[in-house]
């Protein structure tokens, strides 16, 4: 039963489902209780599940992830909200040296079903440290799964899949798309959903494959609509670790061209890795080099400049043009 809803509401509903299905699922983070989170993603959960399951933590990100590890060791499934992308870094030690490695170093005896929810990306006119796209650090770390959503439907399913996954999952939420209303069906059971590792062809096309994820999927779809010269196929990656290369390669082999767009800085970003893999595996199908469109290798600028920093429709189409001008 489709209805208009938002990514924020869909995650909220997905979390509610996960908490109803498994009493071991906990929410923890700063302001996630009575306030419902600064983006209201956990709104109402404190009221319905209580302070033992929706935990307002002290203001300390390392403490959040570190105690989540301990709770997971005791059999719980904590979902941690990191309030903003730029505030993750105090938790980097616990995430990279502890959470990510625990399963392997225990010889598989210990499972770490911990979800880190991180609102990310720019475009909301925020102050410093509230607009970053740090996903490459996570995708570079063995032991973490990294996923991100672009629409309420995926948000609803993928947050539940992340919670039920026995590995640590970093769940990136496109904060500038939180409140956009689109159609989604928030009924049905989890087993009918596409796996969270899978990419999705968001729009079919024949001339060029445009790869995007999270907040850039909408921009990519708008670019595809706007381009009257080329038939653009848009692939929403959804999962950044692992990347669904099967879907990516199949598309690029059909179209012969690939453009990758993300908000994060281009150098050593996800696009660089994906471009390399496409080149290794689709070399004879390529009509042009793989093109990357992304943020600059600078700190995220003050918000009055962010429209120049973020790849918009025109920058994406400029990338598409470069794939044809070659």
């Amino acid at each position: 039963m489709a209805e208009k809803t938002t990514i924020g509401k869909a995650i909220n509903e997905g979390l509610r489902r996960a908490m109803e299905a498994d009493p071991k699922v906990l929410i923890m983070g700063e302001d996630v209780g009575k306030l419902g989170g600064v983006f209201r993603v956990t709104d109402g959960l404190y009221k319905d599940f209580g302070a033992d399951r929706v935990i307002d933590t002290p203001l300390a990100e390392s403490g959040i992830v570190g105690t989540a590890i301990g709770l997971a060791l005791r059999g719980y499934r904590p979902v941690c909200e990191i309030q903003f992308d730029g505030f993750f870094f105090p938790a980097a030690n616990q995430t990279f040296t502890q959470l990510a490695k625990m399963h392997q170093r225990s010889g598989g005896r210990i499972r770490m079903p911990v979800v880190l929810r991180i609102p990310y990306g720019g475009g909301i006119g925020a102050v410093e440290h509230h607009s970053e796209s740090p996903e490459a650090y996570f995708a570079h770390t063995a032991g973490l799964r990294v996923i991100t959503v672009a629409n309420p439907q995926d948000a609803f399913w993928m947050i539940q899949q992340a919670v039920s996954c026995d590995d640590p999952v970093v769940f990136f939420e496109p904060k500038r798309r939180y409140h956009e209303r689109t159609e989604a069906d928030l009924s049905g059971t989890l087993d009918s959903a596409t796996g969270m590792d899978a990419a999705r062809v968001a729009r079919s096309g024949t001339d060029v494959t445009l790869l995007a994820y999270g907040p850039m999927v909408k921009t990519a779809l708008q670019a595809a609509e706007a381009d009257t010269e080329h038939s653009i196929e848009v692939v929403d990656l959804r999962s950044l670790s692992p990347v669904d290369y099967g879907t990516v390669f199949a598309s690029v082999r059909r179209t012969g061209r690939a453009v990758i767009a993300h908000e994060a800085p281009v150098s050593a970003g996800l696009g660089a890795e994906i471009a390399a893999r496409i080149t290794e595996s689709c070399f004879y199908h390529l009509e042009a080099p793989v093109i990357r469109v992304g943020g600059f290798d600078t700190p995220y600028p003050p918000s009055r400049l962010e429209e120049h920093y973020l790849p918009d429709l025109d920058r994406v189409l400029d990338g598409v043009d470069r794939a044809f001008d070659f």
Partner: protein
Amino acid sequence: MSITTAQEEPELIQLLTPDGELREHPDYPLDLTAAEKRGLYRDMVLVRRFDSEAVSLQRHGELGLWASLLGQEAAQVGSGRALGADDMAFPSYREHGVAWCRGVAPKSLLALFRGVTNGGWSPDEHGFHLYTIVIGAQTLHATGYAMGVQRDGAVGDGGSAVISYFGDGATSQGDTNEAFNFAAVNNAPVVFFCQNNQWAISESNDRQTRVPLYRRASGFGFPGLRVDGNDVFASLAVTRAALQHAREGQGPTLIEAFTYRMGAHTTTDDPTRYRIAAELEEWKLKDPISRLRAHLAGTGEGDEEFFAAVDAEAERLGEQVRQECRSLPDPQPLDIFHEVYAEPHAHIDRQRAEFADYLASFEGAGAEGGR
């Protein structure tokens, strides 16, 4: 008017003097049978023997590294024997004595330092989590675990408690301070057991703290105690009390076990570069094993026959540990890819397959082409 933090330091909590004389303590009574006392002595002697064997195995190239617990046997065996079967311990990387008390086989510890595995035992089976090398990280794991104990309703009668081990250096870490605070605001059933062995590699206490470490607890709102860490009775009694306090739902306690690292930080360290020999000589007079031996001999609870039997058992343990270490099987190349994830991950699966093909390409190539 002047601002001051001056405060008189209470004496260390001590039940057994360096001369082996038993002292009653009003707050920490301890009623041990002769057999229990002999058991603690045996634990400490065997752990010290295992530890010295590990140092020698490293010298012979059998281990990549070893972090000796020499001098800290009483703090570890005393606190380790205070733990109940349902309690959970979160060690740093020097807690070989606690591991011993939790039934972790010495060879499992050696496997880590030999480079065979990064883990090596089942934390659930032993109530003893894996060693944690990043300083202080485990204090938060212990606190989170204790928050889970609370949510399981396992606080109160017949409840369980959690203990986290760390050193004086770790008290400077943000994680340790965050753990203190998370434990305090949640009233979590966790005991923070700090072995203050006076040295964080080459840095002495005054590079870590301006106040005695036990006093850190008061700022977080829970009790802090300073115990003679070379006194196995006091370490046992105080830890027992703190664990019971936690089990009863009264929240965390910080125990500072005042002890001394008689050896190097690890086998790669050279303490002669930063500390004077006289300091070690002074601490040798407070040795945890010789004071318990003096006590047992003085009371007649241990005789020469007993001491000789323990020494003989220790020698057998040393021999056994040496054999076991050398016969630990090396892991196989494809083990690199094992258990990185609990569920299949396409990148790992692809790389494993590619590396397996690469290794197979050498098969039948003869000794010159092989690797």
